[in-house]
């Protein structure tokens, strides 16, 4: 009896130790996630002089190594002040980014979500083939469609306007695919029951489809926000006027001489993305899972 008990405890201890080791192994890469954020945060709180002392060797090609302190000796909000109150250009670009993202997401809600409903509920003979086409389009990288987008935008004289970024993104098929995943999870019998009760198709979509399938479209919105907040290739190709640029293109333009500024701008750019990441986390995960569903 006694030895049996001992063995049980031994197994328990071994399990716990194993789990502890696993946790450690899992958390080590987490350092690689936190350190960059800490670096940005601490850098943004240093005054210009201190930051310059640490990193000037990087951009002057000096012989010494870079230095750093995670807690600045002379913490200061001066760079934030300069960025937020004395740089109107920054605001223009921040709102450019916001405008682009919000317009694209609204457009996707209007076009992609109904399309996903159509594919999920009214499957017919032709719909499978069309859906396959949507999937192929979804997987095409920007570079393949770059020239065709350019041609059509040129034809419609939309180049060098925000619409040049918005319209092609609105008709991306990725949100169709994600919303489709959400709508597909609604049991068919439920829709049939509503039909028997005399509900019209549009009512069913608005009253049943949207609330019950919201996980799909919300996850499309969350993934979409993160994607379009980070937009680079499209504005680089289609927007010549720098005052139309989104934040994601402005940041790399800041020179090392204004490093403190660059750190603050990075943190400010990061904030909306982190905010959406935190409030939309469950949907983000759900969206990733939907993106992996095959038909």
């Amino acid at each position: 009896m006694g030895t049996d008990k001992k063995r049980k405890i031994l197994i328990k201890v071994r399990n716990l130790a194993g789990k502890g080791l696993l946790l450690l192994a899992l958390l080590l890469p987490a350092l690689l996630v936190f350190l960059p954020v800490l670096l940005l945060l601490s850098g943004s709180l240093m005054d210009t002089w201190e930051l310059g002392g640490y990193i000037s060797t990087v951009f002057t090609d000096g012989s010494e190594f870079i230095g750093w302190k995670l807690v600045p000796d002379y913490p200061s909000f001066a760079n934030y002040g300069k960025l937020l109150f004395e740089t109107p250009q920054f605001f223009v670009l921040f709102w450019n980014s916001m405008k682009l993202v919000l317009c694209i997401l609204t457009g996707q809600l209007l076009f992609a979500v109904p399309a996903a409903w159509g594919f999920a509920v009214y499957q017919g003979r032709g719909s499978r083939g069309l859906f396959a086409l949507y999937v192929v389009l979804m997987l095409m990288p920007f570079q393949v469609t770059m020239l065709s987008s350019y041609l059509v935008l040129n034809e419609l004289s939309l180049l060098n306007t925000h619409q040049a970024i918005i319209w092609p993104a609105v008709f991306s098929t990725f949100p169709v695919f994600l919303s489709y995943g959400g709508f597909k999870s609604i049991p068919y019998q439920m829709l049939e029951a509503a039909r028997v009760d005399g509900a019209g198709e549009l009512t069913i979509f608005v009253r049943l489809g949207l609330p019950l399938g919201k996980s799909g479209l919300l996850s499309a919105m969350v993934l979409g926000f993160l994607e379009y907040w980070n937009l680079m290739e499209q504005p680089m190709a289609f927007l010549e006027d720098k005052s139309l640029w989104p934040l994601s293109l402005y940041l790399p333009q800041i020179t090392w001489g204004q490093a403190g500024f660059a750190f603050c701008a990075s943190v400010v750019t990061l904030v909306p993305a982190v905010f959406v990441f935190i409030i939309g986390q469950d949907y983000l995960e759900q969206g990733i899972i939907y993106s992996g569903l095959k038909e």
Partner: protein
Amino acid sequence: MQKKRRKFFGLFVFPGFLGIMVFVLLPFLDVVKRSFTTAVTGAFIGGKNYQAIFRNQAFLLAVKNTIKFTVVCIPVLVSAGLMVALMLSRFKKKGWIKSIYLFPLAMPTATVVLVWKLVFYKQGFLNLFLTRAGLDWGLWGEVHKDYLGTATAFWVLVGSYVWKNLGYTVILWLAGLGGISGEMLEAARVDGAGGWQRFWRIVLPNLKGSLFTIVILSFLNSFKIYREAYLTAGAYPDQSMYLLQHLFNNWFVNLELDKMAAAAVCTGGVLMIAILLLQRLWEDR
């Protein structure tokens, strides 16, 4: 009923499809047409543009690098993701660890690149760390390697790609692992199958479906590495990381639209065939 179904399908799908026709499909047909004509006069020249790109050194280099990048980074990402997912699946509460792995997905590239520069420049953090470690253990002296301007830039890109996409892959693998019935595993355990045996005989075969989608989505995301590459090294980076995306962009800037058209048709065609083949391969199983 059939008629009504078709009517509503059209009603819901058509507006979006119209947009896709106007913004994607019709202009792509135009691109196909252009790939057989000259950029300036629009005269028909047959397959000359295609010949031109396949004789173009930059195109060949870019294709080679892009293939190399894909072939290296996708297996690394897919297997690292599986490893993390397997470890994670042992824990009941895994919410916040998953969040940590997902977080890089939310970090805008422009902010990541600022950090990468500080890490990988000649006097940056990585060399500082290596030098300290080397001196402390008496293994080597000071390290002054430039990681972004030389062939190691390729590996920086691979690392950056894995860093960014690991969380995405882990979530997909976890979803796949969650779909394996616990009863089957339990039954195998009762029959005396060990941990490894269960893994090779039950878990892996049941993950084939996930593997297909993970590979495809990883591939889709691999094209976005251009952002990091462009921001760290500009339009003409070290040879080792000159990708198709750089080439397209440079042709676009220089208005070499005929070559671009031919290359777009080739790339799009190859991708489509690859996707369909993979799908066929997968459905046979």
